[in-house]
């Protein structure tokens, strides 16, 4: 197993054992920033190297995943989970949106196996971040005209994760392979190490969700474990249909199967305040995230390989 994943386990154990190990918030911010920029830069450089066609069509297909997933999740949460409208909509938004950390572990997974992926993947990461949040809010609000959409969309679009991803993409694209050489030591060579430290903190955070899990328990745990694979299968199928490589198909599955824990919680807290924020966060961060990095990613890779007829 990739050693970065052990760092998550270490954080989880430390957190559950009530160690005094803490990552200062400033360091968490730095690590996030470096990961986002690195993913963006890498994607930008690839885009500069190999221009691609049909992006608009592919983009539409990807966007449609973002609109579809929350519509699938909502009835499950309401019906089977017996959650109220607000909580169900919140879960829908979280699972329709994406997790950058899971994507980063997926990228590391592919790099370990020398599997390349399509250069537009970071772009698709950006495309998938927003729509589900909008759908989630609509599901919760319906007729109510109380949502200040202008302000909200501005906050989502100019939220730091999109700014850094898109900014990195643009800089990587403008600078090209030559230009980013001097940035390589910080952003590319340190990538795995930075991801390791980041996952350590993610483990600590996931451990802090354990209490909620013990209380609200079984359904959230089942939900968090059972939902990602079908969602990822949708992602993989779309990826395969729009002609992505095995690597790209795997990553689109990872994106579809992952749940947001940065953009969605912030937006939903403001727009749907009556939703209990710890429900969605516990499912997304306490269950689905660990499931994905330990078991999900290899499964999604197997699915992608099968679709491409290359066996797993």
């Amino acid at each position, binding site marked *: 197993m990739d050693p970065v994943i052990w760092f998550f386990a270490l954080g989880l154990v430390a957190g559950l054992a009530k160690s005094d190990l803490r990552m200062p*918030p400033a360091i968490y*911010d730095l690590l996030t920033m470096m990961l986002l920029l690195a993913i963006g830069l890498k994607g930008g450089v690839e885009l500069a190297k190999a221009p691609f066609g049909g992006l608009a069509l592919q983009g539409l297909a990807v966007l449609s995943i973002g609109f579809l997933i929350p519509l699938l999740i909502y009835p499950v949460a309401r019906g089977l989970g017996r959650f109220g409208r607000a909580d169900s909509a919140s879960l829908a938004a979280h699972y329709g949106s994406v997790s950058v950390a899971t994507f980063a572990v997926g990228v590391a997974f592919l790099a370990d196996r020398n599997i390349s992926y399509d250069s537009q993947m970071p772009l698709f990461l950006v495309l998938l971040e927003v729509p589900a949040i909008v759908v989630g809010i609509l599901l919760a609000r319906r007729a109510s005209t109380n949502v200040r959409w202008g302000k909200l969309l501005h906050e989502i679009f100019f939220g730091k994760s999109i700014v850094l991803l898109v900014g990195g993409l643009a800089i990587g694209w403008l600078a090209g392979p030559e230009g980013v050489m001097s940035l390589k030591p910080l952003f590319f060579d340190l990538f795995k190490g930075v991801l390791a430290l980041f996952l350590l903190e993610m483990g600590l955070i996931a451990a*802090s969700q354990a209490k909620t899990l013990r209380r609200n328990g079984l359904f959230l745990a089942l939900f968090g474990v059972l939902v990602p694979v079908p969602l990822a299968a949708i992602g993989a199928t779309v990826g395969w249909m729009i002609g992505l490589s095995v690597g790209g198909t795997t990553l689109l599955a990872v994106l579809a199967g992952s749940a947001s824990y940065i953009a969605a919680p912030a937006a939903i807290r403001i727009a749907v*305040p009556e939703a209990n924020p710890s429900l969605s966060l516990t499912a997304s961060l306490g269950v689905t995230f660990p499931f994905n990095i330990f078991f999900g990613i290899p499964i999604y890779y197997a699915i992608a390989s099968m679709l491409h007829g290359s066996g797993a």
Partner: protein
Amino acid sequence: MPDETRKLLTIVTEAVLEPDICQTLEDLGASGYTISNARGKGSRGVRDAGWSSSGNIRVEVVCSNNLAQRIAEHMRRHYYDDYAMIIFENDVQVLRPEKFP
């Protein structure tokens, strides 16, 4: 220090509300505010800034009694039910009372 009295209104709430609350305070006419980061525990559980916006902020406003009532009332109506929040106030003597209408 002239014995001129104002209210010191203190709000402890979720960090995610900071932009909204600043806007509200300006709209209601407060001449200023002071914010610091905090953590804590209350009816909505433990809140710690260990991770992004999961912490609290502590907002202080020095203002007239009347404005303090209006701010408190606004907070109560818009945030009290859905967000972790407490509000309290006490009298303070201020230097340059004209700064705090």
